[in-house]
């Protein structure tokens, strides 16, 4: 029964064909992606996670954007807007922005590291199913790419009244978006469950 699967979008039972090469298997009825086979999935995802953590550190440690009007310069970091919203009496907005652009991506990377580092050395981390489920629940709440579009809009909006100077953190943040997207895409969940079945 292990190669039988029910489509998560239309519940149709079908046999997963065995594929040795990298590729995608879709549901025969509704076209949902059932399985994505990726070569060296664990190593690839692990290295992207580590790269992501380095970029995350840079994105939070350095100036993000600076705003120059005449002789006045206002330097901001990634967290400035979040603090400012909180100070203006908008704690709800502040928390949502903090979650979707900082905490969720960070938690995703930490959980990924927790699962993949032991797997790489043929160990099974404690509570793997729970942590894995948690990563998947977090996925829709990582909105870094939307934040980037927000930066673009703001810069265009302010360009007429002042000079905007991008900082190191902005470039790190941009790179982090691509690294995190690649990290999520390169994880082969079936492989994780196979390993879990083997070692249990």
């Amino acid at each position, binding site marked *: 029964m292990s190669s039988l699967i029910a489509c998560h979008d239309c519940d149709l039972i079908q046999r997963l064909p065995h594929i040795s090469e990298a590729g995608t298997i879709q549901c025969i009825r509704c076209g949902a992606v059932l399985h994505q086979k990726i070569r060296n999935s664990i190593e690839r995802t692990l290295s992207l996670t580590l790269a992501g953590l380095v970029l995350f550190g840079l994105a939070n440690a350095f100036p993000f954007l600076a*705003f120059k009007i005449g002789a006045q310069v206002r330097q901001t970091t990634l967290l400035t807007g979040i603090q*400012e919203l909180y100070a203006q009496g908008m704690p709800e907005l502040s928390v949502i922005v903090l979650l979707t652009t900082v905490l969720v991506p960070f938690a995703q990377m930490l959980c990924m590291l927790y699962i993949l580092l032991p797997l790489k050395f043929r160990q099974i981390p404690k509570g793997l199913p729970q942590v894995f489920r948690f990563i998947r629940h977090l996925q829709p709440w990582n909105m870094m790419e939307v934040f980037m579009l927000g930066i673009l809009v703001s810069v265009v909006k*302010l360009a007429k*009244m002042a000079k905007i100077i991008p900082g190191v953190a902005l470039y790190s943040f941009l790179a982090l978006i691509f690294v995190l997207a690649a990290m999520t895409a390169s994880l082969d969940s079936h492989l994780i469950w196979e390993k879990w079945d083997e070692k249990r």
Partner: protein
Amino acid sequence: MNQGLKTARNEGLISCHSCHLLCRSAGPDAIMTCPRCGTRLRRRKPNSIKRTWALVVAAFIFYIPANLLPITIVTSLGNAQSDTIMSGVIYFIKTGMWPIALVIFVASIFVPLLKLIILTFLLITVQRKSSWRQKDRTRLYRITEVVGRWSMVDIFVVTILVALVKLGALASIQAQSGAVFFCAVVVITLFAAMSFDPRLIWDTEESLNE
């Protein structure tokens, strides 16, 4: 149509939503957990239609103040000017930055409304057990899952403006309550899309076969 196709529900099986293991159901009312990953097994998302309806209605209600109330107040040399989402779009059109106007209009006004209309349409067709163009309706559902997040862009613009434009009496920007309602619309519609179970679209065909 599709006589040879079997679904997990008809065969007395449940697919674990976390690890996709097919498990044999112990009966319609049995409480089961997945033998592989320990997740609570459910044939369909619990109370999917009721929950999604509640969230969709809430989002429709919040959509009104989100668009009528100002999202920011710009204070510049003693002059205060409040902006709603739509007045922001109009400002960009007037100043000739129509690509940005288009981005804001699509992300903040068009997408949330489209998402709510699609979910309402899916809920009604599922409740009427319609078997009309199930594949296309599943595609519509996937669209709502993908596009919803982009509506947050206006909230992020407010966050960045509030951070950057803080130059004392010269210029400052304050976030206003419209932004809170707008953010609520986006978050609620995200939850609404999550609580809808696309397998309900396909359930009609099987009940006809039974």
